[in-house]
């Protein structure tokens, strides 16, 4: 927790550069979501969660469940920076024999609790873990579940939301990547999701909204969730898809494709000269 916020901003920038390198090398994969979530992942892994990369199955670790498996490049890069596996392994993304599959597989990926890809499944698994920890094992560890906004269109998400609300799973914190895009366009045009806050509140969740690029704000919201003893917390992280790369930002066209060589060079140039454009100071 003691990490200086400026250092974390630099870390997020490095993770963004890794994402671009990984994607261009792999030749396929998702760009916008991973770039948009770099600050949230940095906050979670370097400012919030308890874990030991040398002992990924440490019983008292906090559980991290990625529901929207397609944004895994940001997870992989973060895990490498956190020391779960060698940084050089990032170059194997989506290649034969890799541990870094196109969508994450828990049995080979150090630090992964679940496999994901088909949308809407993560919150149920996170709720199952949280229920076990809270009611049966009575342990203090927490469960963090990252989901996309698009997967709020999956019915299972709401089944799980109802369950977590009914059973007051206060040890569960869900973080939603509210970037407003999905493959076919803007979420509110494809299938409107709002009012998301009211929907979750109606199911007995505490809902907090943050600037998903403000690392301090994300850490503060996670800490606040720890202090709430009544019910689960949803942190709606308002993010910009493709954040940090001008020609990707806000564009749903970059949801599901990697940059080409020239685009990657341009993106890396922008990221290297970003120079603190993504800042966490409170205004």
């Amino acid at each position, binding site marked *: 927790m003691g990490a200086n916020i400026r250092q974390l901003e630099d870390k997020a920038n490095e993770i963004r550069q890794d994402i671009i390198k990984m994607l261009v090398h792999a030749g396929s994969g998702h760009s916008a979501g991973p770039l948009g979530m770099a600050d949230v992942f940095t906050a979670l892994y370097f400012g919030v969660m308890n874990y030991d990369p040398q002992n990924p199955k440490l019983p008292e670790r906090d559980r991290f469940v990625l529901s929207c498996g397609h944004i895994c490049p940001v997870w992989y890069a973060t895990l490498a920076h956190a020391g779960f596996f060698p940084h050089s392994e990032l170059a194997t993304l989506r290649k034969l024999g890799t541990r870094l599959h196109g969508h994450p597989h828990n049995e080979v990926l150090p630090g992964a609790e679940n496999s994901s*890809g088909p949308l809407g499944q993560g919150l149920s698994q996170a709720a199952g873990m949280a229920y076990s920890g809270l009611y049966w094992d009575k342990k203090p560890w927490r469960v963090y579940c990252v989901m996309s906004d698009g997967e709020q269109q999956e019915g299972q998400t709401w089944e799980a939301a109802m369950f977590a609300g009914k059973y007051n799973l206060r040890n569960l914190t869900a973080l939603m990547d509210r970037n407003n895009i999905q493959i076919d366009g803007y979420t509110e045009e494809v299938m409107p999701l709002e009012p998301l806050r009211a929907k979750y509140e109606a199911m007995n969740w505490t809902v907090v909204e943050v600037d998903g690029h403000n690392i301090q704000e994300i850490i503060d919201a996670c800490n606040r969730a720890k202090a709430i003893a009544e019910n689960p917390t949803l942190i709606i992280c308002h993010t910009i898809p493709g954040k940090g790369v001008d020609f990707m930002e806000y564009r749903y066209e970059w949801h599901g494709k990697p940059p080409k060589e020239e685009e990657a060079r341009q993106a890396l140039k922008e990221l290297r000269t970003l120079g603190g454009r993504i800042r966490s100071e409170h205004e």
Partner: protein
Amino acid sequence: MVKLADNLFSPDIEQAPIRNGYGEGLVILGKENPNVVALCCDLVESTRTLEFAKQFPERYVEVGVAEQNLAGLGAGMAHEGKIPFVTSYAVFSPGRNWDQIRVAICYSGNNVKIIGSHAGISVGPDGATHQALEDIAITRVLPRMTVLVPCDAIEARKVTIAAANHKGPVYIRLAREKTPKFTTEDTPFEIGKAFIYREGKHCTIAAAGPQVYYSLQAANELSKEGIECEVINLVSVKPLDEQALIASVKKTGCVVSAEEHQVTGGVGSAVAEALAKNYPVPQEFVGMPDQFGESGEPNELIAKWGMDSKAIIKAVQAVVKRK
């Protein structure tokens, strides 16, 4: 030869729904293993999860009518070392939540037991929507999945207990209607094993579920016309005891498969796959002929759609001519 009920063909043989055996087994497990937990989707009584819920309320979780969440929760709880029995009707689980079972349970390596009750056409009056006739096919095809189809309530209890002691995902198929309790406490059961319930040299009948009893009835009748059938209980549909099956057809030269399931993808298909690559013989398939069911009394439906002892007799008569 295994020990079966003494009054095997008596009209007053004791009857009980196969699902009852699951309920009894679950209570035994509750006492023996603190990690066993049960989840159900608003069907706690009819799936026979109720007694466990009463005796171990702190280990029973009501999920509501949400089968996708049921599978996901089970995965998350198994991840924490629990042995979740996730229970609903087979048409809903594994019917509705197949993707969750595939990814969150099988692919992720989670030790979840999936209990599909009210399987088969013998659900009766509820009609086609509630008659699971595809569940064996969709679970059998999943890597790592074990598929168990007990033939009576006694075997269902043994199957339930064995499932908890087996590490890995298991699907157990249960039926609603009362059927004869024709096995005994001493009748053997083991995952991965098939059991010969009657020896014979003219035709093998490989069956699972209530059709095992119908097969014994059929074999009894056929014996009167000089056709001696070997009846095998394929309770462990996956992994299938190929050795036992091959050994039997080497002796008999033909096989009839019998199940309360579509003839595509189920027990008959498992038998055909095993024999085609090892020892191909003529096979007739007793099961649902690629159709949806309808409302009616269980015995009426079993007869109309050809999954009773009469249908098995016909199939045996046909297959022995093809040898």
